[in-house]
Structures are given as structure tokens and as C-alpha cells.
């Protein structure tokens, strides 16, 4: 029984941690290049709406429809990220306010719910949803099997991307350039690295990942549409990037920890624990605050890997 509970908690942590991890990886790439995009929540919601819409409209084999839906979700969110990039990188808008604009634009009272109303998405069950892939039939191994070898394709994607982002940042010259752009854009510029180009591409890639993260909700976790279904996960992902010290491996650990906190309520309620549902729902938000307070107070005054030029516009003054 206890064994079962532990496994259920771990699986819940991975399920609900996956969108945090995907969105967090995207934001990590942005922020390593010095761009602070507070619009993740908005991009996730638009991604979720578009992904679900595509999966409801298209017909064909499930895997193909889902692939199109995930790509569509990423594409839609990338368009929003591009809007943010134009505002912040070309028109040098304040990144905090522009990010909030993105969240309000896409948010639960914004574009995502407008799209859902236009596509009549509410109330219908998903026609296609991700199934678990039992890799090499190892899923039946106790404990390790269901955790490592019997997950949905999106979970495997998130693992691959975590490794890819880590390799990219620390073992390629593009990653080195990106970090230079985030630390000291003037020096990077003097070295011949195009600050604007790096920031544009990584902001847009961040959007793609946020959109895919949103589609995890509407295609895998919930498989249906309801307004504001991400419930602040985009903001939690933003917090995670901070207390993962901008490092992909720590981000993975943090995402699963918070995924576990998010899923705790569902898991315990299924097992008859009777506490106000609001208490469980509030735990991830309170947890984020606590984690931020701990990181900021314990490591106060140290740099901790925060990109030095984070959130600042850069341009050469002639």
C-alpha cells in the first residue's frame, strides 16, 4: 500500500512536472541570453488552446494528429514570442511590462479563451490523447518500470530536451555565445556575436517550448479544454528557473518536485484524505514563495548564475 502511494506520487510528479520542465527549459534559454519573458503563462495557454483545437479538427492516425497538434501549439506560442521579441528587442520595450502584456493577451480572459470560444472547444472530451509508450516492454519491472519506461512521448521529449539544452549550453560554441550575450552583451557584440540575432532566436525557441508545455495540459494531462487550465504553471516555471540557478539538470529536479506538490492534492484525495481542496491547490504557489525566499535569503549577495544582463535592453549608442 505504501509502496503504491510512493509510486503514485512519483508518477504524479513526473506528469505534472513535465509541462513545468518544458516551459522552464524554454525560459532558461531566454534568460541565459539576457531576455526575461514573463509571458510564459500566456504562451502556454494559447499553445494549449491551439493544440487542442488542432487535435479536435484533424482526422488521421492518432500519432500524426498529436504530432501536428504539438507542433501547432509550439508554432502558435512562437508567434506570440516573436511579438514579444519585436517589442523588446526592436522597440526596446520594458521586458517586465511586455511580458505581462503577453500573459494578459494570452491569459484565461484573453486570446486562449477567445480561440476556445471560436473553436467551440469547451466541454468536449479530447478525441486524441497521448498513450504511455512501454519502451522495450520494460514497463512491467516493479518501481523502475512505470517511472522510467512507461511514460508518454512528451515525457521522453522533455528528457531529451533537458540533455540537449545542457549539451548546447556547455558544450557548443553557440551555447557559449548565448551565455556571453546574457552576461555581457557589449563584450559579446565586440566579439562579433550578433546580440539581437541570438536574443531573437532564443526568445522564439522559448515560445515554442512554452507552447508545447501548454499542449501537455490539453492533450495529455487533462485531455480537454477549460479556461485557464494551466492555473499559473507558467509562473511556477519562471520561479523554477530562478531556484534551479539557471541550470537544466536542477530544473529537472525542481520541476518534478513541484509536479509532485501539484499532484499531491489529486493523489491524496483519491485515497480519501479529506482536507479543503483549496489548501492543496495553494500548495504549489506557497511552495514557490518559500523556495524563492530560501534561495534569495540563503544566497544573498552571491550571483548564483543569474545572467548579469538579464532583463536589460542592449543597443550600441553611436
Amino acid at each position, binding site marked *: 500500500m505504501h509502496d503504491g502511494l510512493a509510486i503514485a506520487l512519483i508518477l504524479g510528479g513526473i506528469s505534472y512536472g513535465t509541462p513545468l520542465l518544458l516551459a522552464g527549459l524554454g525560459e532558461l534559454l531566454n534568460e541565459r541570453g539576457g531576455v526575461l519573458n*514573463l509571458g510564459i503563462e500566456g504562451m502556454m495557454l494559447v499553445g494549449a488552446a491551439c493544440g487542442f483545437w488542432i487535435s479536435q479538427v484533424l482526422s488521421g492516425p492518432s500519432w500524426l494528429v498529436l504530432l501536428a497538434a504539438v507542433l501547432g501549439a509550439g508554432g502558435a506560442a512562437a508567434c506570440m514570442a516573436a*511579438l514579444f521579441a*519585436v*517589442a523588446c528587442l*526592436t*522597440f*526596446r*520595450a*520594458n521586458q*517586465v*511590462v*511586455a511580458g*505581462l*502584456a*503577453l*500573459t*494578459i*493577451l*494570452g*491569459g484565461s*480572459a*484573453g*486570446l*486562449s*479563451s*477567445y*480561440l*476556445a*470560444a*471560436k473553436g467551440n472547444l469547451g466541454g468536449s472530451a479530447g478525441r486524441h490523447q497521448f498513450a504511455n509508450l512501454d519502451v522495450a516492454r520494460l514497463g512491467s519491472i516493479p518501481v523502475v518500470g512505470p517511472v522510467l519506461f512507461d511514460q508518454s512521448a512528451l515525457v521522453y521529449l522533455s528528457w531529451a530536451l533537458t540533455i540537449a539544452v545542457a549539451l548546447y549550453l556547455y558544450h557548443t560554441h553557440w551555447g557559449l555565445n548565448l551565455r556571453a550575450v546574457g552576461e*555581457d*552583451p*557589449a*563584450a559579446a*557584440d*565586440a566579439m562579433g556575436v550578433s546580440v539581437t540575432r541570438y536574443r531573437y532566436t532564443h526568445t522564439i525557441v522559448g515560445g515554442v517550448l512554452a507552447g508545447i508545455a501548454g499542449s501537455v495540459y490539453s492533450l495529455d494531462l487533462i485531455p480537454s479544454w477549460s*479556461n485557464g487550465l494551466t*492555473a*499559473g504553471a507558467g*509562473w511556477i516555471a*519562471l*520561479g523554477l528557473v530562478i531556484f534551479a540557478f539557471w541550470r537544466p539538470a536542477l530544473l529537472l529536479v525542481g520541476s518534478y518536485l513541484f509536479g509532485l506538490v501539484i499532484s499531491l492534492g489529486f493523489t491524496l484525495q483519491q485515497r480519501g484524505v479529506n482536507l*479543503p481542496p*483549496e489548501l492543496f*491547490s*495553494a500548495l504549489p*504557489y*506557497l511552495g*514557490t*514563495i518559500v523556495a*524563492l*525566499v530560501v534561495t*534569495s*535569503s540563503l544566497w*544573498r549577495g552571491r550571483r548564483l548564475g543569474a545572467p548579469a544582463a538579464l532583463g*536589460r*535592453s*542592449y*543597443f550600441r*549608442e553611436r
Partner: protein
Amino acid sequence: MIRLERRSGVSLAFRVAVPCAAFVVALLVIAILLVASGSNPVSTYQSMVSAAFTSSGGFSATLVNATPLVLTGLCATVAFRLEIYNIGGEGQLYMGAMGATAAGLALGHMPGFVIILGMVLAGAAAGAAWALIPALLRAYLGTNEIMTSLMLNYVAGLFITYLIFDSASYWRNLSSAAGKVYPTGKTIPLAGSWPNLGVSGVNIPLGFIIGVGLALCSSWVLRRTTLGYRIRVAAGSHAAARYGGIRLSRLIVIVMVVSGLLAGLAGASEVGGVAHLLDPTGLQQAQYGYAGIVVAALAGFEPVGVIVSGLLLGAIASAGTQLAGIAFPVGLVGTMEGIVLFAVVSTAIFVNYRVRWTTKSTSAPAGAPSAEEVGPPPTAPSNTVTVPVLNREI
């Protein structure tokens, strides 16, 4: 390539003209979106103007929606001016509504003005107290206030939902038959409903009058007092303020508390003027706290401008509620707000900079490189410019 030249001595007319132009651009972008989604933008805009201004009672309805927006707009303005990004206006509004409802219920047997005064004070205090949490964390532990204030929005929303839906709290109506079927809040006695000032057929809510008064007040504080001076200095550079002997931590706490107080008042006025009970669902759907950021940005973070931009966004919100349906689906209001905010932040640069479009890259001239360019890279401060988006020079 774009080249930027700093403007000097920007006139007030120009400062007003740029956000106005941004608003028009936003309307055009929204029109494109409407066409793309199969609606007729001309008729949509016509019906919006009619619903919000020209129809009978339209402007009164706009004022009702503008009331919380002016107050949350001030909430964002006051904090953003100091570059303290309090985006917790939403949660502070919920807590203000909670506090005001408690006061209204507790003082129910008193004369009307005592109830209303109690609601104003309790709403402001509850909003301020909720803002105190991120304020103290930011000021003394250096915790990012954007994240903490935002997380507390969700917590506050869940808290008021718990009070009405999942507990037998003081706020919940458990006595009436309707309250047993569907959870609702206890209604504040009629004496506690906030009055309107009638001016030639237009009802001006008390909350709106308070908002206008506080906007003028904040403008005066920012321009004419030591506190305002400290805020303006610190807005330019937190480091400079600290060096100049300004106690930044205390300043952050004061500004955040005032900011939360304003959002709390917005919640109080929603209870006193509109709902007369604690309505978690309605408050969370309206999202007046987030919309306040749009109001503040459209006003160029000027308190007096907030009155005008609050009215504009109040008109959009009011039209949204009245027209809600197939032609005007839920979500169009937030979409419009987002596009307006985007247009405003993207054009803020035109206020302080003259933008020259050049055909050739001026940064890499085709001619022989000068000694400066082949020399060692210049140091960062001379090369990196943080664009002041907020018009702090005022």
C-alpha cells in the same frame, strides 16, 4: 537598421500623443484579428461605443467598470514608478473585498456612513496587509517581488473561494434557502451600499470619486513631497538612491503598502458599489487587478492619466459584459487589453527617442574601420544603455 537619438525637452502634448497613437494602432490590430476570426470590426466597434457611451445608462455602466480599474491602475502606477513590479493587485483586490465585506457585515446595524467608512478602511487595510508580504520579502530578503506578489494572487483567490464554497465562514450565507442550494456570500445591509452621485443622468459611483481624488493625491505626492522626490530618485537607479542616503528598503515597503491599499480599495468598491457580498467567482473572472497594469501603462505611469485610461478600459470591459455572446465571445476583452498594452510598451520608446531608419548598418560602416573600431572593446557602461521606459523625468 534603426538608430536612436535621445530627445530633449519632450512636450506634454507629445507625451500624450504617443500613447493615444498606440491605442489607435491597437484598435487597428484588433480589427485585423476580428476580420480574421470572421467578425465585422466596424459593427463590433460601433456596438461597443454604443454600449459603453452613447446608449442610455451606457456611460454610467462604463463608470462602474472604470472604478476598480482606476484604483488598480493607481496600484500599478505607484509601484511601477519605483520599478517595484507589484503585480499582486489582483490578490490585494480580493483581500480588500474580503476585508470590506467583513466590515460591512459586522457594522450592519450602524448608520450607513459608518458602514461605508468601515468598509473603506477595512478594504484598504486588508489590501495593504496582503501587499506587505511581498514588500517585506523584497525589502529585507531580496526576494523577487514579481514572483511572490503574483503567487499570492492565486493564494488569495483560493482563500476567498474557500471562504464561500468550502467552509462555514462568516462571509457565507448559510441561513437562506438559496444559500443552501448554491454557496453564496452574506449580503451587506442596504444601508451599506455605496451611493452614486447623479450628474445630469450619469451615475458617478462613490468609488470612482475616491479613485479620482486619490489619483490627484498621488500626483501631488509624486511631484511635491519628499516621498515623491525619493521615489523619483530611486526610480532612476536603486543604487544611486542608496548612495544618496535614501533608505530603499523602507521606501519599497511604503510604496508597496500604498499600492496594496489602492488595490484593496478597488475590492472594497466592488463589494460596496456592485456585488454587496463576497463573490469569489465574479471577482476572479473580472481580472481587474491585471487590467490595472494595462491602465497604468496606457497612462504612461502618470496618476492623473490613469483616470482617462481607466475610463477607456472601463468602456472596453463594460461593452464586453453587455455584448457578451457569440459576436463578442469571452476572451475578447483580455485580448484587446493585451494588444493595447503591447502597443503602448512598444511605442514608449518614441517618447524619449527619435528613431531614424537607415538603409545601411550604421554600426558597421563600409568604409575603412576607424582606430576606435579595431581597438579594444569599449567598456560596458559607455556601450550599454538601459532604455527608461517609464517617463521618470517628469
